[in-house]
């Protein structure tokens, strides 16, 4: 990235923050949290800061246009001290689900920074000039949607399994390829760092007893705990059997014919009807599939570490130049359609590669080694990915 790209990004950041600084919001008590920023052309991380209130943070951000901004999940007596001298008063708990952990890499290309070639495969070396290739992961809409679903499942588990109030849970699009689920609930405040391990294992299905299949042989799925998740995924498979490749024509037909009955019996926790209809082999496959669908692949290190700092809501993520913002738990929307509006004015870019991408209800077409006028907010995304230059 050279000077003019950096200047361009800063101008987009500045436009966003001038318009939306009210979205920047550190949860209270603001002054008792550690705040961190990535600043300057060298992108250095400045940690252990603290601010009086959100207004002061907004002012700092407008003045300095940091590349990234973070706040601690913990509330400290001395937020500015080094980690071991901060004194935790309490900790809120955050979960991070990234598309990568769902096996969703996004659209991936390999670009040669020397001659500008673009490859769909990793050839290690550029076939035109022999230079090393750089991997670029673009956000893929399908990945975002899948990850969003997982974030909602996580929120549901917190409510149904752990008894958290819905209004104590916030779900955020991270600005890049993931979602953050942030919980401030009295019960979770009392949970120590070690005890969090058990919650993580619960979500990741770590050390789930293999005798889950004993349950299965008794032909019922518990309607509570992990069983609730598994049962709901068995229902999901029954709802649209043809989207599961492991099911043969015959099974699909059988399921379609008695779908309603099947769904209601499984929802009740009984697998009897499913067994008599489909036979043991198929049912076992279904349950196994449901089991792997039930895993909620959070990043354990984020949840475990009480000193972790997490991206500040309302601030821009430098990986994409999109902001992190809150999304609804209940609505069925494509989160990136809700990206706050900024950077509408077009700018001319020289684009190496850009796959088609849906944003704010509009689909941006594929671009390949071309000059094109695109809105500034989208241009900022391509520049951040290192695949476009300001003309």
């Amino acid at each position, binding site marked *: 990235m050279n000077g003019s790209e950096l200047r361009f990004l800063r101008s987009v950041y500045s436009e966003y923050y001038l318009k939306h600084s009210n979205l920047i919001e550190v949860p209270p008590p603001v002054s008792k949290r550690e705040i961190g920023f990535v600043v300057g052309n060298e992108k250095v991380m400045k940690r252990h800061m603290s601010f009086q209130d959100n207004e002061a943070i907004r002012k700092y951000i407008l003045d300095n246009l940091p590349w990234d901004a973070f706040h601690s999940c913990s509330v400290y007596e001395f937020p500015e001290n080094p980690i071991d001298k901060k004194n935790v008063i309490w900790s809120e708990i955050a979960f991070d689900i990234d598309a990568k952990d769902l096996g969703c890499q996004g659209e991936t290309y390999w670009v040669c920074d020397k001659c500008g070639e673009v490859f769909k495969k990793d050839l290690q070396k550029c076939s035109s000039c022999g230079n090393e290739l750089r991997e670029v992961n673009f956000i893929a809409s399908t990945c975002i949607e899948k990850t969003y679903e997982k974030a909602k499942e996580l929120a549901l588990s917190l409510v149904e399994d752990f008894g958290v109030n819905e209004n104590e849970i916030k779900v955020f699009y991270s600005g890049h390829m993931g979602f953050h689920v942030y919980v401030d609930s009295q019960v979770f405040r009392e949970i120590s760092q070690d005890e969090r391990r058990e919650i993580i294992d619960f979500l990741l299905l770590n*050390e789930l007893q293999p005798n889950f299949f004993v349950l299965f042989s008794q032909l019922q799925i518990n309607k509570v705990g992990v069983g609730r998740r598994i049962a709901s995924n068995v229902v999901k498979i029954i709802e649209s059997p043809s989207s599961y490749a492991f099911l043969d024509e015959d099974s699909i037909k059988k399921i379609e014919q008695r779908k309603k009955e099947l769904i209601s019996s499984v929802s009740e926790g009984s697998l009897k009807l499913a067994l008599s209809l489909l036979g043991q082999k198929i049912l076992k496959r279904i349950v196994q599939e449901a089991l792997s669908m039930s895993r909620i692949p959070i990043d354990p290190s984020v949840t475990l570490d009480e000193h972790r700092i997490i991206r500040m809501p309302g601030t821009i993520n430098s990986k994409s130049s999109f902001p992190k913002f809150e999304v609804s738990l209940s609505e069925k929307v494509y989160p990136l359609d809700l990206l706050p509006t900024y950077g509408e004015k077009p700018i001319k870019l020289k684009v190496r590669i850009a796959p088609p991408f849906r944003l704010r209800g509009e689909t941006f077409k594929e671009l390949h080694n071309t000059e094109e006028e695109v809105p500034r907010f989208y241009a900022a995304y391509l520049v951040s990915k290192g695949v476009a230059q300001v003309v």
Partner: protein
Amino acid sequence: MEVNVFLLAKYPFLEEAKSFLESYSTVSFEDLSSDEDYVRAVKRGVERLKEAIVFKKISFKNENLIDFKAEVLSFPIAVAFVAALNDDFLRNIFATAEGKRVYELLKRDSYSDLELILKDQKIKFYSPEDPSSSLYRIAFSEYLKVSPQKWGKTWKLVNRQIKRGFVYVSKEELSRLVSEHVKNRILERSRHPVDAESFSGPLREGYVELKSTWESYKLKFAKFNKGSSESSFPPCMVRLISRQKSGENLSHVERRSLVTYLLAKGQSVEEIMTLLKSSPDFKESIARYQVEHLAGLRGSRKKYSPPSCETMKSYGLCFPDEWCKNIKHPLQYRGKPSSQTSKDE
């Protein structure tokens, strides 16, 4: 309020027992030294602790019920002894034994006292929803607090029925959880500092007797533990090991430094687990997870290396001796050059 004194004799850790004792006597320990009840209570207190040390278990006989005053009072006295002896190893032994006693009493009386203890200890729970179900429900935060996952996989949250913040447990399981809770409370109580100098009369005698019992037990235990090749370990690690062995809770950084060092020295996960077991807050599955993680057997599969001397210094964990002079890494430490142990290194 009607106090069931027999119940207090069975479960002297109950909050209710405190108020009973307060009403029983407002005078201090010293003024009591000639009171017969009190003398017997001290005797039973000494016995409680001796039983814990020798048998890892505290008895309950029906005649204890007859002498209920002494039985109730013997408990805080035993706690005071433990606090005064001020040794985490002993604290752990005593609290574990008292916890076991509670569990066995609950079981013996077919769990009839279970709800009473739960209420007294302010543990959030629900009785079985309807007669057809025998499952209690306990708040998951209370459940996790005693970290039952160390008792095996079936106790892991992932393998439990849980709904709206409550974990389903059988009567027997709940009794086990409660006993563990009691153990933890006793550990806490025995950490309040008590000065042995303030003891006089029967209390003084009891203390002296227990002190010698405890010392000789520790001596035996230490002999049993000898024989590892720790003599070639650098002073920083020796310190961590001895703190660990005395039952102190090492900080995260300290534990990590020690474990990575031992792994690099070729100790097995099992050997390290045995060492870690002496922590009062030892949680088998968590400790195992951490050790296996550091050994590169988990997650990222990255094996962690022990910190350098410089890093140890920055943690404030470096205590060099004369053989530390020319080394940059604890793994380079060879100790006294003539020592036998350095030969095969």
